[in-house]
């Protein structure tokens, strides 16, 4: 944590997006996380992603639970809405908020403890409901905020700072998501914004639940020799299988790839998700094969990164529930609350 705030003075040549804003306009308060925390880089990547998509900051909702990761929504999009929920309960809050107003953009930030320990059930049901939400897990293998206990994503054999090894098998959020039928799942690394930013953008544009697991090293409690979530270990073990570029509906597609090198997936808004740098025999649109591929590599100690699975055919929560198109706040009170006569009539119909 620093004693001075980041000065407002900015590079006079900073580019502006379609709203006339610079990246600096998407920043939040000064981070109070440890210097060098991966979470701060994820924050920076989110800033870049929102800026690049020309999203107006006041139309975003930031949600989180508890943890160092849970603190990070304060550090981006000062002008957005925000709700810091109870430990592991962010998915429920997000489900409620998204249900009430389907016109805003939702981003939930969670940790491996928040999502895979206390909040596992919540996460599972948000996926199952296919809430329209970008769900980021800042995954560092430990409970950072409570000083570095192993979390449910810690690998067997990975050691704590004082040398004790973890004995319990990890829960992998990507495989978990696939088994629950998630429509969008990716993995990336806080130290690789070139990959992470387009993935976050694609996740924001995906209609439905988009799960992005970001390896985000805890520089204080889990960046030592023997840790499998350190900067160095992650760099040495990650393998890119499919990067994503999001191409806006209006834009020309600049780069062309030879057949087989890339796959285009048309998104709901007409934009194109272009998957490239595809590994041999990997097809992210085929869930079962993707599952098999990822889990096989995981057993070999490889951390596969990139867009691992996308299925844009799923119906999101509102489609299934058949809710109104407009936010509840815009529904006239008489329609929202039609009165006791209407209730009586409804109950009568169940008899």
């Amino acid at each position, binding site marked *: *944590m*620093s*004693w*001075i705030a*980041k*000065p*407002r*003075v*900015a*590079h*006079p*040549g*900073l*580019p502006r997006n379609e709203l006339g804003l610079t990246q*600096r306009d998407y920043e939040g308060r000064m*981070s109070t996380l*440890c*210097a*060098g*925390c*991966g979470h*701060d*880089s994820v*924050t*920076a990547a989110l800033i870049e992603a929102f800026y690049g998509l020309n999203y107006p900051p006041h139309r975003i909702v930031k949600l989180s639970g508890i943890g160092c990761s849970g603190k990070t929504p304060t550090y981006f999009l000062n002008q957005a809405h925000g709700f810091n929920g109870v430990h592991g309960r962010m998915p429920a809050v997000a489900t409620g908020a998204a249900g009430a107003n389907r016109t805003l953009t939702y981003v939930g930030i969670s940790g491996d403890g928040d999502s895979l320990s206390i909040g596992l059930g919540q996460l599972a049901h948000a996926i199952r409901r296919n809430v329209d939400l970008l769900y980021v897990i800042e995954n560092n293998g430990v409970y950072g905020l409570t000083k570095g206990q192993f979390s449910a994503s810690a690998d067997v054999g990975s050691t704590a700072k004082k040398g004790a090894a973890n004995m319990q098998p990890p829960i992998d959020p990507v495989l978990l998501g696939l088994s629950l039928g998630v429509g969008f799942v990716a993995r990336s690394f*806080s*130290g690789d*914004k070139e990959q992470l930013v387009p993935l976050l953008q694609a996740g924001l544009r995906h209609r439905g639940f988009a799960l992005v697991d970001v390896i985000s*090293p805890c*520089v*204080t409690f889990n*960046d030592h020799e023997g840790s499998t979530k350190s*900067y*160095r270990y992650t*760099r040495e073990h990650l393998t890119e299988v499919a990067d994503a570029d999001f191409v806006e509906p209006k834009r020309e597609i600049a780069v062309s790839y030879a057949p087989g090198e890339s796959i285009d997936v048309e998104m709901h808004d007409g934009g194109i998700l272009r998957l490239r740098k595809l590994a041999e025999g990997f097809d992210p649109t085929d869930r079962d094969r993707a599952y098999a591929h990822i889990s096989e590599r995981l057993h070999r100690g490889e951390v596969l990164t990139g867009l691992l699975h996308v299925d844009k055919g799923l119906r999101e929560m509102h489609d299934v529930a058949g809710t109104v198109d407009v936010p509840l706040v815009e529904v006239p009170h008489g329609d929202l609350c039609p009165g006791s006569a209407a209730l009586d009539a409804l109950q009568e119909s169940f008899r």
Partner: protein
Amino acid sequence: MKPTDVTDPQYYHKVVDCQWGCPAHTNVPEYIRLIAQGRYTEAYLLNRESNVFPGILGRTCDRPCEPACRRTRLDGEAVAICRLKRVAADLRDDVSEYLPRVPAVKNGKRIACVGSGPASLTVANDLIPLGYEVTIFEKQDRPGGLMWSNIPQFRLPPEVLNEEIDYILDMGVDLRLDTPVESMRRLLAGEMGEWDAIFVGSGAPRGKNLEIEGRYDSDRIHIGIDWLESVAFEHIDRIEPRVLVIGVGNTAMDCCRTAMRIGGRDVKVMARKSREYFKASPWELEDAEEELVEIVENHSPSRFVIEDGELVAMDFDIVDWYEGEGGRLRSQVMDTVRIPCDAVILAIGQETAFPWIERDLGIEFNEWDEPTVDRTTFQSTREGVFFGGDAAWGPENIIWAVEHGHQAAISIHNYCRGLPLDDRPPYGMNLVSQKMGLHEWSYSNDYDEAERQKMRHVHLRERMQTLAVEVEEGFDFEQTLQEAERCLNCDVQTHFTTNLCIECDACIDICPLNCLTITANGEEPELRTRLSAPALNLEQDLYVSEALPQTARVMVKDEDLCIHCGLCAERCPTAAWDMRKSDLLIPYAGLEAGEKRPTRARDLVGV
């Protein structure tokens, strides 16, 4: 790109834009911090080491440091470096015991200086403490050169000038006033004394003339620098009401403002070109206009109008400027105009003149009758005869004259010891971490958004009373502190240790000015296109690290806009970035880089 060698003192020196821009490399940020701490004497003496005349320069310097100041690239306005220097000079205590000690036993070498301007005075300042005996020949009855004879008192009070000249004269200069050197041959032949070396600091005394119709038909047409000199020596104490000043350089500004004080009522400065091409500094133009001088653009003089033997007007061509072939500026006459006047002052430039140097002495002169002087050693083509200040390459300013004096003194010291002149002593650098605690630095690292402080001026009516009223009042206490805070401490360098970096990106994410990038190395022009923010200022360097430990990419820093806030170092978990103060160690005659001159009585602590 190759990894940057920050052990070369010039790399970090260049980051300190003001110091790099200062001909004498004055350590600006350090003296600004000293002023902020109320340590005026220390600030004064630090200035004096390099620029010798802080009080004079704090009022009159051409301030090449200010356009160079990094702050101009951020909020458009330089730190008021020059006027802060004046604060140090005005508020210092008695510095006599900190001045250089003069050895009782001399080294037996005798040096003659021609002229007593800032160049010669600096030579004396540097050589006398080494045991040299220095004689200065001055044709006027007062020392100081143009600082005395041409810079008006309302910009530079005589007490300030005299006090700083006396610091040097009191070291034991053998000053011969009213003693023009009329023949170099005689000076060399020992007729005026025996010399081991000669320094020519005689300035550029000849004002340029305007040979057009009517030039010699009136005695109310003056050459600017001669006229100012006559005012300074009180040979002239009034001028007619309607005055035209021809030319728009620094001399023209002093002429018009002087004229306003001794009888001028309607004073116009007539410029041939339009404002963007004016030679005078913007602040001088402002000061003249504040005093109700009119500045007229695009008027090219064509003749003096004389009626019945009296100057009554001048004719001008009104010209339009356009870019001709090869981008050269060309003019086209649009109209002519007659402007009535009672007197004209020509302020269209100055040049050197050496009627007293015979041309058969081995001192070579070029086709324009300028002496051939070596740019590094300041020696002429005759061994043992050195030139500096305006005499060397034509009119410059005080701070250049001072720097020439320092360099010539180094050469003279080598010459007198039989060492080669191009054996220049090397610069050095101290580099010290400024970390005081986890997030605490020895300097004020936050960015202060304050605007540049406005200099307060004496009321117009009061200042026109006599020539001696100094116009600028100087900064008050609050202004001083506020202005000092605007300085970005560019000497507190971001210093990188490659093998400590774990490539976490924290520094890159926090940097408010997007100075930093971790990326694959490349050639500079291409690399510049891949940085966090546009890197378009090619005058500013890119720092490039060695290959980083984890990915073999490199850390690149664009030095252009760094505000030295230290946030990169605060956010770095491994202290790969540190904030370190670079202190450029400048060598002087007889002093290696970093060596301090012995003082008369006391040493300064902690500077």
